[in-house]
């Protein structure tokens, strides 16, 4: 325990932690604090729009998904998130022909007819010479074939074909079982839906639950990247201070040292976030003096939602710094973070199994979040377990380095990256 406190002290007095602290507080103030002053409004009867909700309606889903598949077939690119990160898939001719077969079975449009829409990829603005030495912009819109799904196509067969298409694309596409309803079967919410959701926020979420989701959405963005800087700096501190060999030759086991450092990092980086969660709870409770709010909802959700991100980013930062360099750790975590943030997806409730940065950028849409709650749980457990696996790997790397075992590999990696 003594070592844990000493490591915490080292981190707390470091410049990287100060920067982290300023960034986290700054992000809270600029992003969340305004929302924490906004009261959740009760839906008014007679409104035109209450938003949308994903509901499995075959009559809606089938034509929408078929159109989506035709559009992607004609563009030649398919959007997918195979392991939670955006990927633009380009299929081989053979696989593309298989997609065409699926479209033919669903819509009756032959491959030849489909390929007749060759002007699809010329969509956009073209500059045409106007004869006077200038150019005139001409907007060319793509035309899609008319899609009619015959009555003979059953919903079960349709879903089977969509699964097949997803498999050809490589999984994680819009047509997978996990994504198809959310992508192609959005129905408008009714007043009753909106009111039920509002009541759930007050009764089940005790109000603060809704703010907790928004708080974690914002803070998740920053705690998914910044801990890597602190972790990399701490892991590199021994090397930078030329203290490596003094520490390597100490009696302490690599397991104890790495685990203590990891715990100290995770704890010191989590504490400011948890404190902000209490501040947020206090602000929200002040907004609803007449209601019985759950004061611990935001801190509790922060632990479950944000701690896995802090742990994962910290573990990756430590591992990559040990095996390679600080720069490599920041680069890899930065790439993962950027890929997750730039996902072309809804910001409310659309949480994939492997999404690094979980988003729910709304005080409302409780149902959208709850529908994906199992995915969310899987996701958070996955990143927690992954963090421990990476730490186990870090322990092994550290132990080998102490015996001089991995220095050759490290020198090679650094040597190559410098070259």
């Amino acid at each position: 325990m003594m070592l844990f406190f000493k490591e915490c002290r080292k981190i707390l007095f470091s410049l990287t932690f100060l920067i982290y602290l300023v960034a986290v507080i700054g992000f809270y103030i600029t992003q969340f604090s305004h929302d924490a002053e906004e009261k959740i409004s009760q839906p008014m009867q007679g409104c035109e729009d209450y938003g949308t909700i994903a509901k499995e309606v075959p009559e809606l889903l089938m034509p929408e998904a078929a159109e989506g598949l035709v559009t992607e077939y004609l563009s030649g690119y398919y959007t997918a998130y195979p392991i939670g990160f955006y990927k633009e898939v380009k299929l081989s001719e053979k696989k593309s022909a298989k997609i065409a077969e699926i479209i033919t079975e669903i819509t009756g449009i032959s491959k030849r007819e489909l390929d007749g829409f060759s002007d699809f990829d010329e969509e956009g603005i073209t500059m045409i010479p106007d004869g006077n030495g200038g150019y005139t912009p001409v907007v060319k819109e793509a035309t899609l074939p008319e899609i009619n799904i015959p009555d003979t196509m059953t919903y079960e067969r349709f879903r089977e074909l969509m699964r097949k298409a997803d498999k050809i694309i490589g999984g994680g596409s819009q047509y997978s079982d996990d994504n198809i309803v959310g992508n192609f079967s959005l129905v408008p919410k009714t007043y009753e839906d909106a009111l039920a959701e509002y009541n759930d926020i007050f009764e089940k979420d005790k109000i603060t639950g809704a703010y907790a989701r928004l708080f974690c959405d914002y803070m998740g963005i920053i705690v998914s990247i910044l801990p890597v800087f602190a972790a990399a700096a701490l892991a590199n501190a021994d090397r930078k201070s030329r203290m490596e060999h003094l520490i390597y030759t100490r009696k302490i086991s690599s397991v104890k040292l790495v685990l203590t450092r990891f715990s100290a990092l995770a704890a010191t980086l989590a504490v400011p976030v948890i404190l902000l969660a209490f501040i947020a709870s206090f602000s929200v409770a002040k907004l609803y003096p007449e209601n019985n709010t759950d004061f611990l909802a935001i801190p509790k959700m922060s632990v479950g939602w944000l701690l896995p991100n802090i742990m994962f980013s910290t573990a990756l930062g430590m591992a990559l710094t040990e095996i390679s360099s600080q720069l490599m750790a920041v680069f890899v975590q930065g790439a993962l973070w950027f890929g997750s943030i730039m996902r072309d997806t809804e910001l409310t409730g659309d949480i994939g199994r492997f999404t690094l940065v979980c988003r729910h950028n709304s005080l409302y849409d409780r149902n959208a979040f709850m529908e994906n709650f199992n995915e969310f749980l899987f996701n958070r457990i996955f990143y927690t377990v992954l963090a421990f696996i990476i730490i186990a790997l870090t322990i092994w790397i550290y132990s080998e380095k102490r015996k001089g075992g991995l220095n050759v590999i490290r020198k090679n990696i650094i040597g190559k990256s410098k070259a």
Partner: protein
Amino acid sequence: MEKIEIKNVNKYYGKKHALKNITLTIDQGMFGLLGRNGAGKTTLMKTLAGLHQKKNGSITICGIPVENTTEIRSITGYLPQEFSMYPNMNVYEALDYLGTLSGMTRSERKKRIDILLKKVNLTEHQHKKVKALSGGMKRRLGIAQALLHDPKVLIVDEPTAGLDPEERIRFRNLLTDAAEERIVILSTHIVGDIEASCEDIAIMNDGKILWKGTVSELINNARGNVFTVNVPQKYLSQIRKNYIVTGMLIQGDYSTVRIVSDAVPDLQGINTDEPNCEDAYMYCLYQNGCEVQGGDE
């Protein structure tokens, strides 16, 4: 069992054969490992400290095989050639942190740190940040951290390089004190350090042990092979070209030159002289076929 036994140890860095069949026994007291830069001293030191793995052979430290790293780390103290500590920690905090990593309790740390700071003359600087210490003070802090957990073996790699003469003497005395109750291995390329503090020594070159024994045996080995001659300065470059020159004293137009050689040099007025440790070391290198430049820079 208070000894280190090294038997037929080999170590490679890729294709480079860094330690070549090293066999050595080191008993309690001060042991000097002398050799040029790049001779393999640091590699041997690191192998003893468990920081490098040998290819084959065996090493036991006080009866414990070097592969048992946890036990080895608890009985050895190591001071590397190049080191520092967290610059923003003060002297006491740095030692306290390293003591914690050695598994010492708070009271053990307090007691040992106070004793060692006194011993290395850093008590009044204990609240000074590491980054504010001079080179000599940093070295003394280094020896304190290596002795913190009261190890049976102290491994010290090139500790006096870059120190002024006063600090060097002070440092050597610290090592001599430490050697009263433990094995101290001092690796250096500075012959004066060995001569002043070690009885038993080994000379390394190109990964091999060229010579092992006492300092007096090394000097005896060179007896009859050290010569002095008084020559006009204009012949100096010629002499340096043909002989191994270990010293020159310029006096006006003449210089007194020390030469080590197997045969009596064919120079007018040549005299046999008593070898010192430096002459003996140079003679040992020469005797073992090493390329020795002598005074020719």
